[in-house]
């Protein structure tokens, strides 16, 4: 394994609750993820894994603690700088409908390139990514014309299109049947290999653990 690409140190996230004590969603979690691996955050629903993922992915800020991404503490960054990081260096895959509904598969993928301000070779890259996820033949379909698995594969193609360093995937297989879910995991493994990308995903499905290079388990808001 190579360098550490992502590191969390004593990360705490609390949410204010009206008329009660703050709710602690993530409690003093520390972890390290090396570059170019498929890391899995495992845990039951409510264990805090999505909250943790959001903080790692610069979507949310920890109440306490620090997150180092590619060597820099992103919790000290401005909102704008974190947005730029998300646009250029990070890709996201969400549990369900995360495609932009009025765009075709092709346009969805191309949009990630637009966001990352990549102008050259867009068409080739989009086609390459869609072929990689096995949807070369359905490039110009609208999301609602595709199955759940197909949609998720487009989302993955979109997440990888602008060649990010890290892809965060929040329960990407939750709505898929087990065969399709396995397919997605296989795709992730391939991509780690082919694109040298780091993938951090959450899941509650224990049957998928085997696919990961590193597995962290969250229980009761803590890493075990």
């Amino acid at each position: 394994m190579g360098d550490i690409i992502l590191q969390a140190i004593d990360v705490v996230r609390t949410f204010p609750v009206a008329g009660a004590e703050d709710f602690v969603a993530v409690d003093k979690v520390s972890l390290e993820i090396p570059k170019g691996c498929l890391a899995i955050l495992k845990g039951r629903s409510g264990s805090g894994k999505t909250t943790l993922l959001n903080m790692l992915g610069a979507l949310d800020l920890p109440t306490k603690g620090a997150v180092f991404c590619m060597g820099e503490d992103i919790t000290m960054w401005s909102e704008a700088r974190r947005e730029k990081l998300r646009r250029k260096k990070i890709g996201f895959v969400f549990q369900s409908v995360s495609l932009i509904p009025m765009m075709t598969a092709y346009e969805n993928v191309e949009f990630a390139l637009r966001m990352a301000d990549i102008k050259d070779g867009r068409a080739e890259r989009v086609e390459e990514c869609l072929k990689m996820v096995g949807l070369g033949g359905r490039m110009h379909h609208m999301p609602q014309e595709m199955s759940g698995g197909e949609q998720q594969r487009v989302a993955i193609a979109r997440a990888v299109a602008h060649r990010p360093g890290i892809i965060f995937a929040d329960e990407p297989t939750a709505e898929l049947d087990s065969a399709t879910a396995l397919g997605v995991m296989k795709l992730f493994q391939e991509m780690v290999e082919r694109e040298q990308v780091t993938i951090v995903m959450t899941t509650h499905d224990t049957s998928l653990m085997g696919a990961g290079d590193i597995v962290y388990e969250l229980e009761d808001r803590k890493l075990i």
Partner: protein
Amino acid sequence: MFSLMLHKLLHKKWMVLCLLIGNVLLIAVAVSFPLYRVSSFQKMLTDEFAQYREQEGRWPAVFGVALNKLKGSSATGFAVMEQETDEAVEELGIDVLERVTTYRLSAQKTEATVVRDDESIKRITLGAISDLENHIELLYGRLPETERDAQGHLEVMVSDVAMMEQDILIEDEYTYQLWKNTDGSPLTLKVVGIFRPLDETELFWEPVEEDLAKQVFVPVKAFRESFLGEGVEEQFNLHGNWSYVWDYESIQVEEVSRLMRSMERLGRKTDFKDNIVESAYQQILSDYSGKAKRIEATLVILQVPVLLLLCAFLYMIAGQMLQMERNEISLLRSRGASKGQIFGLYLMQSVLLGLVSLVAGLPLGALFCKMLGSATAFLEFSATRSLAVRFTTDVILYGAGAVLLSVVVTTLPVLFYSGISIVNLKQSRSRQKKSWWKKCYLDVILLAISLYGFYSFRRLGERMVGDVLSGNSLDPLLYVSFSLFILGAGLFCARLQPLVLRGVFALGKKRMKPSTYVSMLGTIRTGARQEFIIVFLILTVSIGISNTTIARTIVLNALNNTRHVMGADITLKEKWNNNRASVRQNPSLKLTYTEPDFAKYETIPGVVTATKVIRDTDAVMNEGAERMKLTLMGIRAKGFFDVTKMSDELLPYSYAEYLNVMAQEPEAVLVSENFMRKKNYHLGDSIVFENGDGKTTVGYIYGFFPYWPSYEPYSYLIGEDGNVETVDQYMIVANLSYLNEKNGVYPYEVWLDVEDDGAGFYQWLEEQEQIALTSLEDMAAKEERIIRDTMFQGTNGILSMSFMIILLLCSVGYLIYWIMSIRSRELLFGVLRAMGMRKGEITWLLMMEQICSGLYAVAAGGLVGVLASRMFVPMIQQAYAASEQVLPLQLITKAGDMIQLFAIIGLVLACCLLVLGRIVTKLNISSALKLGED
């Protein structure tokens, strides 16, 4: 069921609020019409009566029945007639202020016992007026007794006027030559008193005013005893008159048609057939009914578009609400609720909302009515003029009708939804449908119909003027074509919008920023959802523009035109004395006029300029055998120029140039262009014309004019077949001094240019006792009458009201649409934010969407509005001023109105943006994304 409904309503309070707003407005608009009709027509009717009274100095409402019974006639007797008349009045239901009965014995020769001035024979009319003694004061003598005196004389009294005019004095005795008492003895009269009216302004004198100077009066009782009764009446020529002075202010407009029908029925009865006395109220009432019908029809037509839009709004909101409740409906259906039950639920909801709205709608309607009544121009109201609001049964009917309409419109969409079950709901959600109106090309069809209407009305042209002249209202089809045009063009623009966007998108998509890209692509792909709001916005702007144009155009053209036809601020003519009577007896004398002092006008405070203007409508052009009627105007160039206003654009040369020529050349005349064409005149030709007294003058033509102050180039004649003919009117203008030099002084008008609407002049006029005016016309008063005119005021009011309502609907609709659209896309924004899009970019995205739909709609609406105004307003204007329009029509759009219009719309859009901006800044990425994880 009821609690389920209440729960449902509370849950969707914003939608319910929208429904309530729509309902309340619908009801208010519906009831404001009968409210306004009643109060404005009441005012119009009272004004017409009052105007008659002011102009004629007579009470306009006197119902009178007269009976003439000649000697030996077997016609209905006086007693019967009196009773029948009383019954008739009862039936008419008029509010009688004064009842006056008069009797008269036909004038016959009498011999005076004491002869004065060699005149022994006098024709005397013996009359009796009921209750006379209570309305007079005695100047000499005493009141006549009801019994005959010892010598058998009937005691009489006369008015002071009769005393002078007929030379009848107190103590005079007269014996009728023909009339005898029933016992055959001579009928003799003795004058015992001279009287004069106690108060001449009393209504009592209205029916008998003319009798005072011509008759001698016995007490009614004495008259009855001597001449009336069966067997007695037949021996004399008698006349009876029963007059009822009634209160025209108490007549309600709702009663007018019933009153007119009763009058007509009465007139057909044998006893009343020829006996009802003509009175002004008959003409006033029938004029009023005609006018009222015309105005009513016009106002109804003007209101239709806003009512339709209100219905469309309600339908949209109700549909939107159902859309939100589709889940619940399909759930209910799946659990076994019948279609009927669901329909019943919604029906109950609509009825409840309708009734609640009625409570608020009625007072708002009253407010609208007041607003209509105080309208002075488009979106201008003057608080000083308010109408009395009266609730009639009509109001209740219209209110109930509006509630029914709203119930129908809001429950109608349920029919489409109540059949949905959860299964076909899921199926239908994934499909994007093309709007029904696009599929059936409704926009193209509407445009085609309206253009057909436009061209056929344009071809009609003169025919329409005829319709208006013969009292018909604005042809409904014309206004319908106009409305259809706006609707059709609006829809057409909405159809074009995605195409236009697609074009822009295709051109720029390579270089677009991600936010612009998303918003444009979104607008293009999900366009159908926005159609309604775009159409609404286009309609708001276009109706706003055409409404202001209509309102401004009809009023300002009417004002300009009146100003032009009048010529000056105030025109007046004094009474001129002449020696016509002497000339008639001695034809060798020359007809001369005595000129009243003119200099006094020049010194009145507040009068800027005064000038003499001869306007001789009896003049003729005289060339050998050929004579043509024309109007001869005599002017003093400098004064005329100062007093009149004339736009140079209407003339081939500047107005000043025309008058300069007149000032330099005494013999110069100007000739109207139609006369030039008729006679093929050229500059420099001589022209011989006669003035109204037949005196001939020769002038030389120095110019031709198409328009001239006070000159109306043609008049309209309606043939019996209803065809309208235009008749050319000719005019020549000469120098007043030249005319006077040739023909002697001739009666002229005085034209004044005044300050402050002539306040100074009127004050001066009040102080003058010697001055006798034969005519006085005042521009300010005419302008005031035009603005106050029910037709103009109602039009202004309704157009303003419609516009404000449409604007309100549009703002509410726009805001609702966008809030819902953002709410439904929170997930999308979450994804975009996760992908690194900044908040500012999301705001820009929303702004772009507004630009794509809002700005496009405003621009398209502006275009449609201007186009519709250009095309239809000239025709609509004809309905208001066809015959009076002399000047070429000017389409008037005030920049102020447009700025106001666009400022309001801009404000609405800005408010929307503000609200949307707040929603966006509050948007939390992670919680937005969570939405997708449920």
